């Protein structure tokens, strides 16, 4: 009996070690909790991507501190070929200017940008404001309040830039996410909000302008910010894949290839269609330049609006 127990224990041990060694998995870090807007895109991206790479992969949710904890985790893994991050715009291009972080825009090997959705300026459908001019005029007497999904997020930045560069008078009220902000908009606690098409479509909202240089397909009657006689303001919610620095060039190009293939796959296209995510592929070099450009532009906005000392 005793020997049987011993051998059982030994077998379990061997089994454990064996399975453990056989598995060589790619960790895909998502810097938000499971089920969030970024997470679901990442989770739809992951199966095709790992198939292209020929590895098994795991989505790891490392949430906290405006997505910087997960991003720092990727940057911290220098030279590790088994970790990539599925990153939102804010963690790469806004937070490094606001906080003292262990990473900066130069701490990554850029793989690709996956999706990008322009942001709209919107009001509740129940309000009688139909155009930006009306909005700006109505705000003169008593400043409006605009919501955001937190301080230093893209909705905050876009509105802050708009207020700084136009006649619109409005003050910021941050919420803990787009959902609570939408509730506040529905209850007329706030009057204006900047967010993406997904939000616009899901709730009873009216777009007044789009934060892009041209009008956007599907919203041909929504003017671009420039048409309103304002300086160009480009704000979009985008996501991309980054790897830590110090990985081999071969691995990097393997990632880039797999990413491109994934974005062209039927599975992902179908998902993007349903989730209203606009696929906007940028290769490694373009993506790197894009992040750098956005980082500088956002820093300028933060300086202009006094959010950054």
């Amino acid at each position, binding site marked *: 009996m*005793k020997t049987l*127990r*011993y051998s059982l*224990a030994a077998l*379990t*041990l061997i089994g*454990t070690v064996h*399975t*453990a*060694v056989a*598995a*060589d*998995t790619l*960790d895909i870090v998502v810097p938000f909790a499971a089920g969030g807007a970024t997470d679901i895109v990442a989770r739809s991206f992951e199966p095709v991507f790992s198939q292209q790479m020929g590895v098994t992969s*795991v989505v*790891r949710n490392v949430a906290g501190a405006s997505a910087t904890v997960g991003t720092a985790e990727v940057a911290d*893994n220098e*030279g*590790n*070929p*088994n*970790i990539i991050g599925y990153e939102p715009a804010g963690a790469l291009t806004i937070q490094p200017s606001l906080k003292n972080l262990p990473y900066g825009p130069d701490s990554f090997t850029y793989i690709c940008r996956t999706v990008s959705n322009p942001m709209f300026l919107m009001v509740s459908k129940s309000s009688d404001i139909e155009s930006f001019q009306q909005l700006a005029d109505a705000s003169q007497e008593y400043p409006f309040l605009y919501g955001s999904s937190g301080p230093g997020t893209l909705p905050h930045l876009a509105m802050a830039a708009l207020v700084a560069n136009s006649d619109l008078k409005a003050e910021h009220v941050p919420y803990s996410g787009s959902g609570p902000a939408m509730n506040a908009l529905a209850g007329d606690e706030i009057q204006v909000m900047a967010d993406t098409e997904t939000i616009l479509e899901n709730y009873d909202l009216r777009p007044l302008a789009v934060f892009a240089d041209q009008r956007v397909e599907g919203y041909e009657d929504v003017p671009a910010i420039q048409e309103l006689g304002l300086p160009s303001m480009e704000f979009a919610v985008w996501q991309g894949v980054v790897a830590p620095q110090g990985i081999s060039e071969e691995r990097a190009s393997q990632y880039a290839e797999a990413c491109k293939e994934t974005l062209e796959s039927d599975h992902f296209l179908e998902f993007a269609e349903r989730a209203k995510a606009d696929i906007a592929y940028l290769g490694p070099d373009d993506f790197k330049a894009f992040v750098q450009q956005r980082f500088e532009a956002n820093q300028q906005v933060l300086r202009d609006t006094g959010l950054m000392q």
Partner: protein
Amino acid sequence: MSTSLIRPRLLLALALLGVGAGLSVAAWNGPSDAMLVPRVVLSIWCLVAVLIAVTELVKGAPTVALSFSPLPLLMMAVLAAALAMKHIGFLLPSLPLVALTLWLFRVRRPLPLMLATTLIAGGLWFLFHHVLLIRLPSLLTSGVV
């Protein structure tokens, strides 16, 4: 007076007062908008801690006799394992921690001790890390251990 000061309950109240006071300094030095509520909360903290310390002083609760207890050992082990997890992964620190916990709770025969350690630390780690794919901190870059 000097003997009554080493009463644990009083010391605890004083320690909490000290922490509250220390944090208050940080709160009053910080930006006034972000620190508005912390200042109020910490003022209540300090006030209440003073009141508790006074009550404990007046009440004169019994002092405890010092005796050998394995508790600090377990506490230190838990803390050490928690600190080690970031650097050497989940599995390695949890094996000795589980073994120690079992030992302290009087599971001391070698076979049950070994088996239970493997099963509780190794088994749960394997279940979550590899089967359910809830990634726990890992030692190797490949995430295997």
